[in-house]
């Protein structure tokens, strides 16, 4: 049985990855999960300088999921290169680094620094975080802005670039096509869906940021639909995510057209879930006598 998957020329040993922002740089979850078993660790977003993030409360529970407004707190690229990358290099897993910035120049700086590190196999470009005032989603909600940043970063990047798309748009295929036209090597989707929660007893917003990104099992049907639509619209490989909690969920994304999947909020609920999902995918392939994972990608039919 071959679980390998190829994304923009990079081979990952299996399709199970971690969604950016939910897994740090793997350190915290390495107490629970054997990182060697994962297809890749996708790191928390990193900027050119340290970011303090948003005030608290930053997280809230909602029915079947959660809201977060962390605001991309990160230690900056210098610390990341000195501490996080060497940590991940101890493991036999793919390293995909999520890159964020307030301006195009910020992104370029981080992309160029990461170009010095051959262990980083791919860059995921965060143009979809809904919780910061500058940058991120500002580049991901208008097709021309997304085209421009993709085009610029492609010129500076040594590794393939994967644009992480926001679901907070009218037509995600328009964004996918803009990223493809700009030279993206891959797409990942979906980032969180902007939401809000109000504490009716205090008559206040639960999150200090008022709004936050919704994730968790409740958003999965939206994410599967968007992955399917995107897979129909562009030729780029897709890493699918949004509410994956079980192997069955992951297989839905793969059948909809994802070459790999990322597990996010579920890590908070079951820290062992990535390994369990991988095992469940193997069981499914065994049950249906699927020899190559690749044969499942986009295999849904009418």
């Amino acid at each position: 049985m071959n679980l390998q998957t190829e994304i923009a020329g990079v081979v990952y040993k299996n399709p199970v990855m971690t969604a950016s922002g939910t897994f740090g740089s793997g350190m915290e979850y390495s107490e629970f999960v054997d990182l060697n078993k994962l297809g890749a660790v996708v790191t928390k977003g990193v900027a050119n300088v340290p970011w303090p993030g948003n005030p608290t409360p930053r997280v809230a529970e909602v029915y079947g999921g959660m809201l977060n407004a962390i605001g991309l707190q990160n230690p900056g690229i210098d610390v990341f290169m000195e501490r996080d990358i060497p940590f991940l290099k101890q493991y036999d897993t793919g390293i995909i680094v999520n890159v964020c910035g307030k301006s195009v120049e910020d992104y370029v700086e981080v992309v160029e620094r990461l170009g010095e590190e051959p262990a980083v196999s791919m860059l995921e470009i965060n143009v979809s975080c809904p919780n910061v005032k500058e940058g991120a989603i500002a580049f991901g909600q208008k097709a021309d802005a997304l085209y421009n940043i993709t085009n610029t970063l492609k010129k500076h990047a040594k590794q393939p670039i994967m644009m992480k798309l926001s679901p907070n748009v009218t037509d995600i295929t328009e964004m996918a096509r803009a990223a493809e036209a700009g030279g993206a090597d891959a797409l990942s989707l979906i980032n969180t869906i902007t939401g809000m929660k109000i504490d009716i007893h205090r008559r206040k917003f639960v999150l200090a940021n008022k709004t936050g990104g919704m994730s968790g099992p409740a958003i999965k049907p939206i994410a599967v639909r968007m992955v399917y639509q995107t897979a129909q619209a562009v030729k780029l490989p897709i890493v699918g995510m949004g509410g994956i909690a079980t192997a069955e969920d992951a297989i839905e994304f793969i059948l909809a057209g994802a070459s790999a999947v990322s597990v996010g909020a579920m890590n908070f609920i079951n820290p062992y879930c990535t390994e369990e999902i991988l095992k469940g995918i193997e069981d499914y392939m065994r049950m249906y006598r699927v020899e190559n994972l690749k044969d499942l990608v986009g295999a849904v039919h009418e």
Partner: protein
Amino acid sequence: MKQKVVGQVISQKEIAPMIFDMWIDTTLAGEAQPGQFICVYPKDKSTLLPRPISICEVREDRKALRIVYRVAGAGTKEFSAYQAGESIAVMGPLGNGFPVKAGEAKKAFLIGGGIGVPPMLELAKQLERVGCQVQSVMGYRNQDTFLKQDLEQYGPVYVASEDGSAGTRGNVMDAIRENALEADVIFACGPLPMLRAIKTYAEEKKIPAYISLEERMACGVGACLGCVAKTKNVDVHSHVHNARICTDGPVFLAEEVEI
């Protein structure tokens, strides 16, 4: 080592209105320290996130943990209905806990406010064991002075109540003044206004105050950066003025955090 395991409820009772006292048979008790917490997972899949709950007591054989918690929402409401024998998913032990070192302090204040009282019990037990004189100062809303008798095993307990129905009318600082108490170290857990008053008091008295903070959490293990406290200096892990309450705390030296 942190683990997520399935434990079993040994017993549960309501010890004050909406305050529940549960003993759990779990391997997490093996290494649990006072001031650490566990994450408890609801079974209802609409309420997915773990509930961080402080460790109140560790059984002598280190095979069971006691938690005392307030029913505050859907998750804790679910837990409160558990009967003896029910399975319960827990992760831990989490966080740093209170420092307990022999000879470090001669006379300590253990200050708890409301649902900040429970973590003081295991701490009182451990401090007494290393020869520290324990003085508990506990703040309650009214005469429902839960855990007061448990704490009395380890030293005098001074009570403050908001409505004056038990001990000193007012808050824990009023009780300290009224009883003319002194100490050379403070350990505290409770609402922010209480912790702020303690921070100021400790600065005036020039004594260390270890305070346990709480914040809404998601992962509980330091990955999501949901629960952070503002720090005076740049934090060694985050490289900004934020420390993770779940991992770098929940116990901080009062002088090191902006509250």
